């Protein structure tokens, strides 16, 4: 039982004034292990972000459970969040703080031991190569620099579980490659990484296991090799189409 993230029957139903009930996520199950990159692969609107928002406790599940290191997202939200780092294209930084202040603020707010905060901040500044602009305000930084600061603030409290929601959206090739490098490094450190994407090559390169999500349901969940075997196709794009069209 080394599953760090366990999701069982997770469901989210919205009520939209114009459309009535919308079943964004419909009873999904999966689990992730330490030292693993778990990919959530799906088209836009498939339910990836809603699932990750439930795991990060921003949204409350309509039904089902999800636990992170044994903490339930519905009953111990703070316990979950203090063990988790959440990165997405929509989680922005504070423009009027410096890079150093940003990392320090997130370390403190995430309960990193107060006496070790400075040391941790300096380590991350060094690790991500942001020493040159550590005291510049975030709004003055380029998007590549902001990305580094964003990742540093995500791991400021050294969480064992990391959630990356479409992290490559809006990044150029070099910055996207750097992001992949960072994810691999975190995997080597033994962290659990949930990585959502709609880019097939990214999932192919990074993920140890891939869950194909469509219409709020997980259609398949396994390693890339086994998915290839099961569908008798080589490329992830074909595997994805196989499941999605097969469903449709």
């Amino acid at each position, binding site marked *: 039982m080394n599953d760090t993230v366990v999701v069982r029957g997770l469901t*989210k*139903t*919205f*009520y*939209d*004034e*114009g*459309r*009535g*009930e*919308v079943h964004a996520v419909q009873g999904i199950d999966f689990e992730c292990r330490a030292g693993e990159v778990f990919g959530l692969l799906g088209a836009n609107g498939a339910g990836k972000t809603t699932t990750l*928002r439930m795991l*990060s*406790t*921003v*949204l*409350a599940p*309509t039904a089902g459970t999800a636990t992170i290191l044994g903490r339930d997202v519905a009953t111990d*939200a*703070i316990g979950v*969040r*203090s063990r*988790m780092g*959440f990165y*997405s294209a*929509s*989680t*922005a*930084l*504070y*423009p*009027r*703080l410096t890079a150093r*202040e940003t990392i320090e*603020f*997130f370390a*403190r*707010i*995430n*309960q990193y031991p107060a006496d070790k905060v400075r040391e941790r901040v300096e380590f991350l500044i060094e690790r991500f190569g942001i020493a040159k602009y550590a005291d510049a*305000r975030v709004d003055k930084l380029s998007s590549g620099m902001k990305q580094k600061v964003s990742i540093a*603030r995500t791991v400021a*409290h050294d969480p064992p579980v990391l959630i990356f929601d479409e992290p490559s959206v809006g990044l150029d090739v070099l910055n996207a490659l750097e992001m992949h490098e960072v994810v691999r490094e975190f995997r080597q450190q033994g962290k659990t990484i949930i990585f959502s994407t709609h880019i097939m090559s990214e999932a192919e390169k990074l993920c140890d296991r891939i869950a194909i999500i469509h219409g709020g349901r997980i259609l398949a969940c396994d390693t890339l090799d086994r998915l290839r075997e099961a569908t008798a196709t080589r490329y992830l794009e074909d595997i994805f189409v196989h499941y999605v069209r097969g469903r449709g």
Partner: protein
Amino acid sequence: MRWATIRVLWAHELRMLVRDRRTVVVAIVLPLVMMPLMLYATREMNERRRKGLEETLYRYAVTGTEAAGVRALVAGGLEAVAAADAADPAIATLRKFRCEEIRVDDPAAALAAKEVQFYLEGLSGAEADTLPPEKEAAKDEEDAAAEAGPEAAPKRESVLVDPVRLPGVPIVRIVFQGDRDSSSAGRRSMRDLLAEARRAGRDAMLRERGLGADPAAVFKVGESSLASAAQVTGSYIGRFLTLFLMMFMLTGGSVVAMDIIAGEKERGSLETLLTTAAGRGEIVTAKQLAILTVGAVITVIQVANILVYVTFKVIPLPENFVLEAPPKTVVTLLLLFLPVAAFVACVLLMISAYAKTYKEAQLYFFPVYLVSLVPPLVAVLPGVSLRSIIALVPLANVSVAVREIMVGRFDWPMIGVVFVAMVAASAWTVRQSARMLSNERLITSGGADAADLAGGPALFPRHVLAWYGIMGAVLFAVALNVPQLATFRRQLLFNELAIFTLFPLLMIGRYRLNIREALALRPVHPLAWLAILLIIPSAGLVGTGVFRLANLVIPVPREMLEQFSRELLPKGMPIWELGLFLSVLPAICEEIAFRGTLLHGLRGRFRPAVLAIVVGLIFGLFHVALFRIIPTAFLGVVLTTVALLTGSIYPCMLAHAGNNAFALWLGMSGRNTGAMAWWVYAVAALVLAGGFYLLYRVRTPYPGLRRNASRQP
């Protein structure tokens, strides 16, 4: 609640604010510099104007058949002023009035050419009798023009000094140019001078008829106030203290509040914050404390600013201004203001949490600001006592308590009640604002979604309230500005047909709504009609009981009610016409608007119970008169509940028509339902409950109502 986390978040909010130079300059530095400059400039300009007018030599001409008499009057007036007691401020002012008559052939042309400031026209009694009667309003209009000053629209006008004139009495008419400052000022002084001449003449006549004493000294009026100067000052300040505190806290707190959640949502940093280990309650508390801190600091700065102006006499204080603030007063005021400040911080936070963007938050702020300032104004109303139901009305209760405390009246039991009520209200708003950060729709940024893209019926629920806002604005604007519609029939026809029928039809067309669904044109169970017959009289009586209850909190003057009845029931109108205008038309048209398109648009936004209250309240607000809102909102809730249980507009139309006809019959037969015994209302409430029970048993619920799923974030 971890206070270390709250401290980190609070310090973070303040650091963000201090680093926003534009906000700091606009909110703190600019008022500090601009206020004294503006006050100084205004004072200087007024002083210069006053001196200029005082030093002016007013030139005037005299004309008319009684010109000689007018000249004698002016001379008599000047003599009377010279002889009068200079201690009288009015006489002192008149003594500074310098005037000179110049001879001109055409006084009107001379006035137009600015050769004279005004001219006097003397008319004999016989001439005056041939003139058309002067309207009383003319004097009011002239005074209003004088008050408005030289900026007012140019207006040439001549009026009588005294509007009440007996036959045969001559007239001295002052003709002036109301759009010229010096002409208006000269006319005012000349009017006072002529009044002084008239007074002197009257006194002389009385003496000639043998009155031994000075006519002005038939008896003397003396006065003495039992209140000390400090109490008088306290009474003056106490009336406005809560209001000003609210104004400062709202404007000061808004500097940080508008950005504190709405700005974060817009930038995307709120979601970042919500995925940290900080609890929602801790985030809300820190944000409330930040608003409170900034609001308090800006309030202190503004008060200190005012004190500086007072010290340097930029703001003059009234005579006998004695402000006493013993420790007991200060501590009690602080205790009462603390929950008020917390309340303000929460209200501001809720605006910020509700808005999607900073700009949207600013848009919401202004109406909330205006509405928030209404309750503290209660302290200005005469006759509102702390020992009344007002002690339970948040903000209004504090304003009245502060007024009492400032004159040294410490009614401790009632101050305790006020404190508890205000703390309870603040605690409720704290809780509500904390819950807003758990509302998924409010915390996640929502851009264009499926409804925006689909348009049509999917978009209608989002726009429906804006449509009713426009309807309300048109209704009010037309009622206030189109006198041609200010008759009973025209006003009613316009409201019912142009507002309550045409607008819903426009909405149906614009959003391509299915007319049967939008207007709930559905058949109902036959027994529902029986339930409606029970509901009609019982709802009317219970509504009157609700009005009586509301009257305990906000008493409505009897004259207002009588005037309303007079206007609503015009004399001489046949019964069929009254029935048509007051019962049938409103039942059809208003139901189309409220239980039709409004209910259809809002059906997915609120749960059924809240939906009934919201639709009922909007229905009440459209009935314009403030005192009618509660009873009409009650009727609105009843009718909406009928619609929710039957899923149809038809029973609502019958219930509405029946209710209005019942009220009309009561009014015409002279029965006073407002004076019935309370048990009558209790029995009516039971019958009403029975009617609804029957309706519930045969219900055909309104389709598409919101259930328990969370709303689309």
